[in-house]
């Protein structure tokens, strides 16, 4: 039975987080502690998306990060990088201890990911609206090479305010890149406030469909539902796919959920770290 539902049926975040999701969030907090700063809300909303991609979907070799036949995952919303960093540690691309160096002077882990420094990171992101075009280029390259690598580009909802995203969507649709998937972490809150107020994206599903994507929506914290959608990729044999993940900004930290003030926090001291851990009990 499919658990992919129509948008009006999606009511996110009703189910409690399982132990693995809580554990991964504790690693996110560990990383925030290391840097005493970071994008809290933007990382927490991404945890299940990253978890399912790395645990169940992506083909990779941690001991050979540039393995030619790997799937490419581009975290276009680079500010959510802590959620990716913890999965890179989980899969052996980087030691766990590196998480504690987040944002420090000589660390390989910056506040936005850099491909030249971090094994397993495909592209340096942070400036928003770049990843989908990289994905178009990579998907075309895979097609020319006759490689079956899949290219998955994870974007934020605020990010897709950028016009360049829609330029890339035009190209992806035109080239019928079925090996390309756009994932939107639709947590409904961007830095300045609710997306519905700052720059309304609705009707979002229709927009992707209008750009010739096969598009579905899913509860972005429902691990089983995410697995099911990602395992179905491509959603259509001759079109790129779009997966709109309905998520909660700051998911798992009750006092930070849906609060734009937790988009990014600096000066995360011991007291705040203790509160964050306590929220995950």
């Amino acid at each position, binding site marked *: 039975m499919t658990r992919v539902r129509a948008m009006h049926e999606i009511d996110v975040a009703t189910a409690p987080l399982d132990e693995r999701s809580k554990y991964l969030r504790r690693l996110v907090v560990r990383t925030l502690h290391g840097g005493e700063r970071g994008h809290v809300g933007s990382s927490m909303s991404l945890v299940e998306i990253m978890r399912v991609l790395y645990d169940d979907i992506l083909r990779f070799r941690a001991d050979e990060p540039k393995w030619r036949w790997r799937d490419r995952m581009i975290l276009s919303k680079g500010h959510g990088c802590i959620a990716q960093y913890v999965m890179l540690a989980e899969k052996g691309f980087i030691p766990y201890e590196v998480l504690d160096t987040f944002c420090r002077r000589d660390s390989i882990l910056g506040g936005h990911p850099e491909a030249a420094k971090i094994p397993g990171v*495909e592209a340096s992101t942070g*400036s928003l609206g770049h990843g*989908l075009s990289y994905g178009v280029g990579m998907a075309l390259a895979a097609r*020319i090479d006759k490689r079956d690598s899949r290219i998955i580009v994870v974007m934020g909802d605020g990010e897709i305010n950028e*016009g360049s995203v829609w330029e*890339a969507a035009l190209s992806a649709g035109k080239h019928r890149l079925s090996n390309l998937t756009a994932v939107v972490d639709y947590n409904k809150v961007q830095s300045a406030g609710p997306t519905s107020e700052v720059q309304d994206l609705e009707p979002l599903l229709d927009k992707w469909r209008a750009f010739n994507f096969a598009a579905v929506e899913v509860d972005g914290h429902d691990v089983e539902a995410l697995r099911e959608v990602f395992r179905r990729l491509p959603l259509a044999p001759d079109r790129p796919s779009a997966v709109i993940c309905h998520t909660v900004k700051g998911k798992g930290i009750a006092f930070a959920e849906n609060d734009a003030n937790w988009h990014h926090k600096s000066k995360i001291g011991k007291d705040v770290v203790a509160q964050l851990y306590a929220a995950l009990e």
Partner: protein
Amino acid sequence: MRATCQNMVYDLAKRDNRVIFIGSDLSPGLLAQMKKEMPERWYMEGITEANVIGMAAGLAMEGYIPYVNTIATFITRRCYEQVAVDLCLHELPVRLIGNGGGLVYAPLGPTHLAIEDIAIMRALPNMTVTAVCEAKEMVRLMNCTLDWPHPIYIRLAKGGDPVVSVEENGFAIGKAIPMRRARGRRSIVLMSTGVMTTNCLAAADLLSKDGHDVSVVHFHTVKPLDEEAALEFADGAELVVTVEEGTRIGGFGSAVTDVLVEKLGVATPPVLRIGLPDAFPHKYGLQEELFEIYGLTPAQIAARTVKSLKVKDKVA
């Protein structure tokens, strides 16, 4: 020069299967034979410059060498963030071919005039900036682009430009070419890039007729600048004149002056920087007419040089 450059992409693509062409919204039938023979390596993506740069970056990340072509203003200003982050930060071998560098699109007005392309491209780490003087030299440049590991901006001139380069002088990215050597050390040195080298050679003839001893050094590569050549010719010169079809702010003349001042200190010879003023051009007409307005014709370059010599003597 433009047709030569575009045809060279096809030529390179036949030699090397890493080569890809990406245009925005260029002439119908452009590189039709390439499109027919290798459709997976020929793209026309429409007016989506930001996407085109990112797409080229994605292809380059996978080992391809994309040659991206559109109007110079749009391949530099319109997608500057993408050029900086996608190409320069990742240091990818993408080639940006900018049609109509400088004042080529004079009749089309200021939206189409690439007056600051050299300056803004030069400011980006890892970017290589080139402006050859005519079609023959374009062939030599394009032959070097396959193995250059950095992004390259290739500024195109109008086309039909008189051939002044000489094959025997050789060609290497980052290596300036002395086109004319003065007899003595205490001479006038004209340094230029792009088609201004042609005007400088003509200006040198005029100056020479008046008894001046003149060198002309052609910098087809503005970045990395051939500092050695700049210093060699400037050291001991009576006057250095830099000539460019672009803004004087941060352009070729600035690059030369930076080197001279840093390396020669108080021994830096007087420098006259000829280029465009800090203003959008508001006249139409022909490129040559704008040259005249901004003092870039051979006669004007010669006259401004002589005037500068007189001012220098007066100050002395």
